[in-house]
């Protein structure tokens, strides 16, 4: 700040005393906190409205994914259901279990991958791990299990449909 007398034009342009200036900023900070508080209340309202009145759509009907022999043991196949953009992944474990999950980490939506021979699904972004058989979180930051689809067989064809009882963590 200019303390000499050469150029004191700023005093005219900004006629607020130093003491007042510090108080103004704290007052503004308090008001800003109040604004943030209002924003958070609105956000909570949005979550409540969305959860109660516009629940997420369920997968309707059964959808063909691929033939059984297209998928080797320990192999995976990504797919989407027609009419939606959610990526899914079909996993055939080494023990011949078939599982289908949303290929979106429940932490920050990174793509997850089956780690061959481990029975686990890995999220490389922040080292999150899920159980390949149940979708439960084993380690890392993800807060919820992976959303899951039911896998059903019709002869050699693999179909998926909405998972009956969605997994819940207590």
């Amino acid at each position, binding site marked *: 700040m200019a303390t000499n007398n050469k150029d004191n034009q700023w005093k005219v342009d900004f006629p607020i005393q130093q003491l007042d200036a510090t108080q103004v900023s704290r007052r503004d900070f308090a008001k800003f*906190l109040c604004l943030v*508080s209002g924003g958070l209340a609105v956000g909570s309202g949005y979550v409540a409205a969305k959860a109660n009145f516009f629940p997420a759509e369920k997968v309707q009907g059964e959808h063909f994914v691929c033939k059984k022999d297209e998928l080797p043991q320990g192999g995976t196949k990504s797919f989407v259901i027609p009419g939606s953009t959610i990526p899914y992944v079909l996993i055939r474990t080494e023990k011949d279990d078939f599982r289908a999950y949303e290929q979106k980490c429940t932490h920050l939506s990174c793509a997850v991958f089956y780690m061959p021979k481990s029975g686990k699904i890995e999220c490389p972004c922040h080292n999150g791990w899920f159980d390949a058989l149940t979708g439960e979180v084993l380690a890392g930051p993800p807060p919820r299990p992976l959303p899951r689809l039911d896998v059903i067989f019709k002869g050699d064809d693999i179909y998926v449909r909405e998972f009956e009882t969605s997994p819940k963590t207590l």
Partner: protein
Amino acid sequence: MSNFREAQNQAHPNKTSTLMVALIVVLILNVSIQIWLLYTALNNALNENVDIAFPAFLASLGLFLVGFGWLYFMPGIIRNKKVKYR
């Protein structure tokens, strides 16, 4: 002439500061509780456990109103009157 308020401000210049800090601390506390409520409501709603979302919203709204009313107690700007000596 000076009134009681001015005399107080001159005698205890720290008072306003203390009030301001108390106010801000309470507001920060409110905001932290609201963040927690939002986080919990969101996580539960995404887990198909929607019952918590509406009470969390009410609590959050209540905290906002409390914080808003709390601003009423914000100390005013102290104007130092220029004292003229003749």
